[in-house]
């Protein structure tokens, strides 16, 4: 009986959604021009990114500079998720010793493969978040790729332990540098996260003023935090 009721509910919601979504025509240009009496935000970003913030990737400019507080909130959500998971799966010190990550040893193939692949993946991740303002990609994507590299090592080597001290230091320094860049902007031209775009010209590595620096800090922070989450989750002893 419950199934029938849920099917009807879903059909109702489905019809409701289709009805609203279908009178938003797909692929139609809603940006409109800047001079119209209701200028849209997208039109402003597209026309001003090249002159004002001199960054090739408009999305990076939006995420880091125009809507900088979103990314700050974003990094905070990840940081709080890490702290929350650490406190949810918290084990006292004495339970710590007998926990080991892997019960079945990984074969020779995985071990050599991991040792070869790890530097390449880490390099790719770092490339992605350093070139965030030129090519697609950025802090979040690059950090995640580096975290997958660490994951590969965590899985294939029992002895491989990320040094918690260094991780905590990198995480805090990256987070603090993000905010201190913002505070520096607050001091120099009294808006938080203010940018100085005159540096470099479009499509060169140095272009975009503070945007690449902020995205590199975000990249490090995301990489360390996701590795932390994976480390905590992998360390739990399955009670079977």
């Amino acid at each position, binding site marked *: 009986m*419950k*199934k029938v009721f*849920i099917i009807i*509910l*879903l059909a109702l*919601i*489905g019809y409701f*959604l*289709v009805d609203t*979504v*279908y009178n*938003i025509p*797909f*692929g*139609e*240009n*809603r*940006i409109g021009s800047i001079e119209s009496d209701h200028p849209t*935000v*997208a039109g402003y*970003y*597209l*026309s001003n*990114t*090249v002159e004002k913030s001199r960054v*090739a*990737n*408009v*999305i990076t400019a*939006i*995420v880091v500079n125009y*809507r900088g507080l*979103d*990314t700050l*909130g*974003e990094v905070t*959500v*990840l940081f*709080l*998720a890490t702290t*929350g*998971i650490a406190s*949810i*799966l918290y084990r006292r010190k004495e339970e710590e010793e007998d926990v080991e990550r892997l019960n079945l040893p990984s074969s020779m193939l995985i071990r050599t493969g991991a040792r070869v692949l790890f530097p390449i993946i880490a390099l790719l991740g770092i490339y992605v978040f350093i070139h965030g303002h*030129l*090519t*697609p990609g950025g802090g*979040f994507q690059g950090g995640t790729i580096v975290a997958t590299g660490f994951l590969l090592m965590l899985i294939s080597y029992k002895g491989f332990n990320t040094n918690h001290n260094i991780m905590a230091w990198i995480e805090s320094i990256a987070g603090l540098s993000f905010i201190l860049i913002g505070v520096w902007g607050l001091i120099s031209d009294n808006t938080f996260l203010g940018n100085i775009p005159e540096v470099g010209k*479009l*499509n060169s590595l140095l272009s975009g003023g503070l945007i690449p620096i902020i995205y590199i800090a975000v990249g490090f922070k*995301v990489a360390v935090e996701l590795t932390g*989450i994976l480390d*905590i*989750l992998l360390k*739990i002893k399955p*009670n079977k």
Partner: protein
Amino acid sequence: MMQEEFNEIFVKYHEIITLGVYGTSIALMLIGLYAVLMKKNLVKIVIGLSIIDAGIHLLFVGIGYIRGGTAPIFSPGYENAANRMVDPVPQALVLTAIVIGFAVTSVALSLIIRLYKHHNTAKIDQIKSLKW
């Protein structure tokens, strides 16, 4: 080459492409909603939630697409292609939404692990110790 071809296909078979994007995203949302409402296993419920999120992210990018538009990146050959670009704002919002969705999913899964430690079951109807 591939992108121009895609654009005129776009113009010719407009209804099919619209059905493809909108229809799929709404279908994903409904499937996820079905899982959240019907399934008993906690992991299945979190899978349902992540499928709802997937549907919404597809709708975000689908609505931001403009027929015949290019990616919003001023790469060397496209300095003055501003008027032919896709709407960048939904893409920037979806970037944040994906990472938030991941953070919420990881907290939910760590809660499931702790619930399994206490109740030795991952089924929602056997964890009913808190009454209404």
